[in-house]
């Protein structure tokens, strides 16, 4: 059975895996984005809090995902819970870091001008600081998503959902005829998903970044 025949015969299973993979990553990204931006907004003003958030997230990022999942399994069991927690945690990091960097990178004279023309703190944040910090935040979201695509695959080892299952089925049946097809289907599926997500982010960027600050 060649690769195309394999895709044809297993398309239902594969589509279900693709859907689960995308949906897990997407949902975790939404949560991670909200949490990450909020964390960034809360901490960027204070030197130590911002640095603490950045250092903590950077440290967490160095932890191998398999080890993170390994630590989560004894606490929350196998399946969806460790996957979701790990995905959100890893997804958080680039967003928090980029939010802080982006918000701190807003030209202080603009913040000054915003205050000077009578904007309240909330208005300043929503209408000046966040819009100006949005491009780096969006970059953070892109980076996070790509990373989560791969991590979600690994989480399949702890019975998580998605295309990782396809890869691990292949690994489990190494030597059999279908091993290559399974691994290839899983890997290519994840690559395609990642590129699709990236294209969507480029589109979002086009739509949401004002022309005045687009590079």
């Amino acid at each position, binding site marked *: 059975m060649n690769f195309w025949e394999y895709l044809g015969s297993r398309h239902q299973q594969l589509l279900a895996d693709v859907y689960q993979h995308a949906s897990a990553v997407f949902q975790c990204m939404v949560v991670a984005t909200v949490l990450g931006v909020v964390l960034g907004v809360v901490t960027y003003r204070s030197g130590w809090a911002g640095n603490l958030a950045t250092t903590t997230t950077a440290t967490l990022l160095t932890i191998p995902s398999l080890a993170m999942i390994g630590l989560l399994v004894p606490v929350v069991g196998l399946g969806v819970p460790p996957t979701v927690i790990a995905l959100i945690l890893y997804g958080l990091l680039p967003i928090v870091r980029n939010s802080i960097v982006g918000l701190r990178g807003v030209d202080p004279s603009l913040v000054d001008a915003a205050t000077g023309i009578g904007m309240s703190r909330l208005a300043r944040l929503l209408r000046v600081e966040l819009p100006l910090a949005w491009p780096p935040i969006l970059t953070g979201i892109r980076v996070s998503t790509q990373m989560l695509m791969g991590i979600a*695959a690994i989480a399949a080892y702890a019975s998580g959902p998605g295309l990782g299952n396809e890869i691990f089925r292949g690994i489990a049946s190494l030597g059999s005829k279908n091993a*290559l097809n399974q691994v290839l289907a899983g890997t290519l599926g994840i690559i395609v998903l990642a590129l699709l997500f990236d294209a969507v982010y480029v589109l979002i960027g086009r739509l949401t970044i004002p022309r005045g600050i687009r590079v």
Partner: protein
Amino acid sequence: MRAPESGRGGASGLGVEAGREAAIDEGLAVADAMSRAAGLGWRKLTFLPAVLVVGLLCTWLWFRHADLDPLSENALSNGQVWKALRQHIELTVISTFFVLVIAIPLGILLTRGAFRRAAPVAMTFANMGQATPAIGLLALLVIWLGIGRKAALIGIIAYAVLPVLSNTIAGLKANDPTLLEAARGIGMSPLGVLGRVELPLAVPLILAGVRTALVLNVGTATLATFGGGGGLGVLITTGITNQRMPVLVLGSILTVALALLVDWLASLAELLLSPRGLETGSG
């Protein structure tokens, strides 16, 4: 008053380096500001090893009193833990060595005259590569090359070459063009410009690349177990498949500790090896 506050914020990552400078230099005016940064830097530097030592000690104490069934005993006896750890370190070190040997010269090459046009292609390729899941790459290599350490090593290396390469290219490109012009202007040869201006300026960047590679490789090496490459991943997978939490936890904790330790060592190297007067590059 206002401005310095916002200016300082993002620079804390550099505090470490700045502190180092103060320890060496006899700067007068700056010394005061820097000594504070130094305190912070050294506290940060000693904090992590302390946490690691405490964490590992706790794990060890917990383990001595843990009830181990035969299956767990079996998985952990005969120095298997040490073997896994040693394998993991070997995988990391060897792969990092190759990553650097491949990626940095390639990065330099791709920023030279004739090859410069190939750089965007390489960058695009690198970005595409980011989208490839490490586990899928490793599995494909295992199918192609057969089970064993070789496939695992190649997978780890392939996975880390691209980010380090794109970092190197980006960094060399970020060098101030007026500096390079000045170097050419005073009559340096292309090789002189590279060796005496560009590379020294890019040292922090290369060190950052080393750190990236190390951290990535420690992580990817945990997956080597799926291709029969050994490493601490063995403990984790054994723990998960056999539902033996002590094995799983021990494997995970050791992996986390190793990753943090490697990152810490790399940050130490960045601190010690960065040329003086260059405060960019970490962060």
